[in-house]
């Protein structure tokens, strides 16, 4: 029943809308200043398969806000190989790039997917790949193709093959879902009648740590995605919360109150070897590891108001990082190590912002009233966060330059606490 309720519309602003089953509806609410015009020719034989690979590729690319789809219809004969492409057909349509390909059923039941990406301006082949996959993998293959195109044309890794986790609250039930980055194929990995919060992916992509109140107090669990088995990692006297993975996936930084106050500790991913990291009279929480694993940013009110600090692990030095405003929380490093995303309060509004380490310049990226829980895509280009509209929790995404905005909603449930998974290797 609930699963049926969860089946939602997937609407894409740039294309004619189509219907599919998904947990989240993704809607583009703002686009990039410059977009790359690209024509995606339906692949040969595509019509004989239940899902359209090129439609998924097109959806992925246009959702990123960096591409504009150019009509690919009416070109005869329809090109399927690089050598079939007549560049004049595409320059006249204003396309800077064109994608062609084919799907070929093999005798063992698998499908051979071939695609070619061509630069129309330079008249060169940019990429050509062949995948042999089971029909069930066609959707994943489409995301891979979109990743290749994105990377070739923007110079940055694509994140269409990654997954996201989030918490949905429906009535009195809390569920932790894992879905594809476009919101499709949501799978509930844990459900509870008590709140679930703070999911975080292990950097190796195999586990998710989260906090559950099912034990009438915050307890940290680590759950394997492959087996569904989970382990209590921290259930000490008091509250156990705010898990953050070390880059090597072996340890977590957590917030424990077992020794009084809320302080940061390091703990092995199996719950052994607790080691205290901070000793302050105030609150220390919301740890987040630097990509190199050498330092941790966290939220602390040791200076009076909640601000973001950085702890260097080698020597224990702590330095304050945010100075503007009276409420700066939830720091998340950008993967290039050059800055961080955080939540700042301005009056009664809570918004997602970016601060550059070198210049200390702050750029506010969102305009909602209650934006929180940011999570940075592994390519650093998008930030997914929780927001609210009409008293209901929704997820939204914004590009780290603030230009591209997406809104992700789920019918009949509150969605919150998004966590972006790592790149798929």
């Amino acid at each position: 029943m609930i699963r049926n309720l969860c089946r939602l519309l997937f609407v894409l602003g740039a294309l004619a809308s189509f219907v599919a089953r998904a947990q989240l509806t993704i809607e583009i609410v703002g686009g990039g200043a410059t977009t790359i015009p690209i024509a995606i020719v339906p692949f040969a034989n595509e019509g004989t398969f239940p899902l359209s690979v090129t439609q998924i590729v097109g959806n992925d690319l246009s959702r990123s806000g960096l591409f504009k789809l150019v009509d690919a219809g009416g070109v005869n004969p329809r090109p399927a190989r690089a050598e079939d492409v007549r560049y004049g057909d595409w320059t006249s349509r204003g396309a800077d790039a064109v994608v062609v390909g084919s799907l070929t059923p093999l005798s063992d039941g698998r499908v051979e997917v071939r695609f070619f990406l061509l630069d129309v301006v330079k008249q060169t082949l940019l990429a050509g790949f062949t995948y042999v996959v089971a029909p069930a993998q066609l959707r994943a293959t489409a995301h891979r193709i979109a990743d290749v195109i994105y990377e070739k044309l923007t110079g940055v890794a694509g994140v269409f093959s990654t997954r996201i986790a989030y918490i949905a609250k429906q009535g009195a039930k809390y569920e932790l879902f894992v879905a594809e980055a476009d919101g499709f194929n949501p799978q509930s990995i844990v459900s509870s009648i008590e709140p679930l919060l703070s999911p975080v992916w292990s950097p190796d992509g195999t586990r998710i740590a989260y906090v559950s109140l099912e034990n009438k107090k915050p307890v940290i669990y680590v759950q394997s995605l492959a087996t569904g088995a989970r382990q209590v990692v921290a259930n000490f006297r008091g509250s156990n919360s705010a898990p953050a993975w070390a880059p090597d996936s072996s340890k977590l930084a957590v917030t424990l109150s077992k020794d009084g106050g809320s302080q940061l500790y390091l703990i092995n991913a199996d719950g052994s070897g607790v080691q205290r990291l901070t000793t302050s009279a105030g609150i220390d929480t919301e740890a987040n590891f630097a990509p190199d694993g050498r330092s941790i940013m966290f939220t602390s009110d040791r200076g009076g108001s909640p601000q973001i600090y950085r702890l260097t692990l080698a020597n224990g030095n702590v330095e304050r990082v945010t100075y503007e405003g009276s409420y700066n929380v939830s720091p998340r490093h950008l993967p290039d190590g050059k800055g961080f995303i955080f939540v700042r309060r301005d009056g009664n509004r809570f918004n997602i912002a970016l601060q550059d380490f070198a210049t200390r310049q702050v750029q506010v990226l969102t305009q909602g009233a209650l934006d929180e829980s940011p999570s940075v895509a592994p390519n650093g280009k998008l930030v997914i966060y929780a927001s609210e509209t009409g008293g209901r929790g929704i997820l939204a995404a914004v590009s780290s330059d603030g230009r591209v905005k997406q809104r992700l909603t789920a019918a009949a449930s509150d969605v919150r606490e998004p966590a972006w998974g790592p790149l798929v290797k």
Partner: protein
Amino acid sequence: MKRLLVSALCAVLVAACQSTPTTTDAGAPVEERNPSAVGATGAATTGTSTTPLTGSPTGAAQANPLKDPSSPLSKRIVYFDFDSYVVKDEYKPMIEAHGRYLQANRGARMTIQGSTDERGSREYNIALGQRRADALKKMLLLYGATEIQIETVSFGKEKPRRDGHDEASWAENRRDEIVFVGE
């Protein structure tokens, strides 16, 4: 004194249990919640749910003072001002009653659950709720309770009493709730 020593020893043992790595509860991958297993885990790790209430000053035949609506012990909620952890004077009689009760009933165990209103980071609010719970515990200790009798935890903004998005709702959500183990 001897009983204190025993309970202190128990506390140490329980603490030792808590810091040992816990086992994987393998099983149903989707519906991970297993009420019996979770309940058992909780009892073992908090170390509070197996001790029955003993030595009630009013005697076993009498009504439980914790349930008597005319007793200050029946009052269980302390509300806080915005951004504050100061326990207001109006709650002192109630807190004193709870402190004295814990002093007179060394076997009694309570949990203080701190909560915040809905504004701000979920995790930072967990820490703020914890501070509220700790503030109340500190007062109970002054009135004769002992450390081992009180566990302070936080629900942050996760379990509001009221769902509204206005000051009246927020005021009811900034609170500590006292729950006696075994109730």
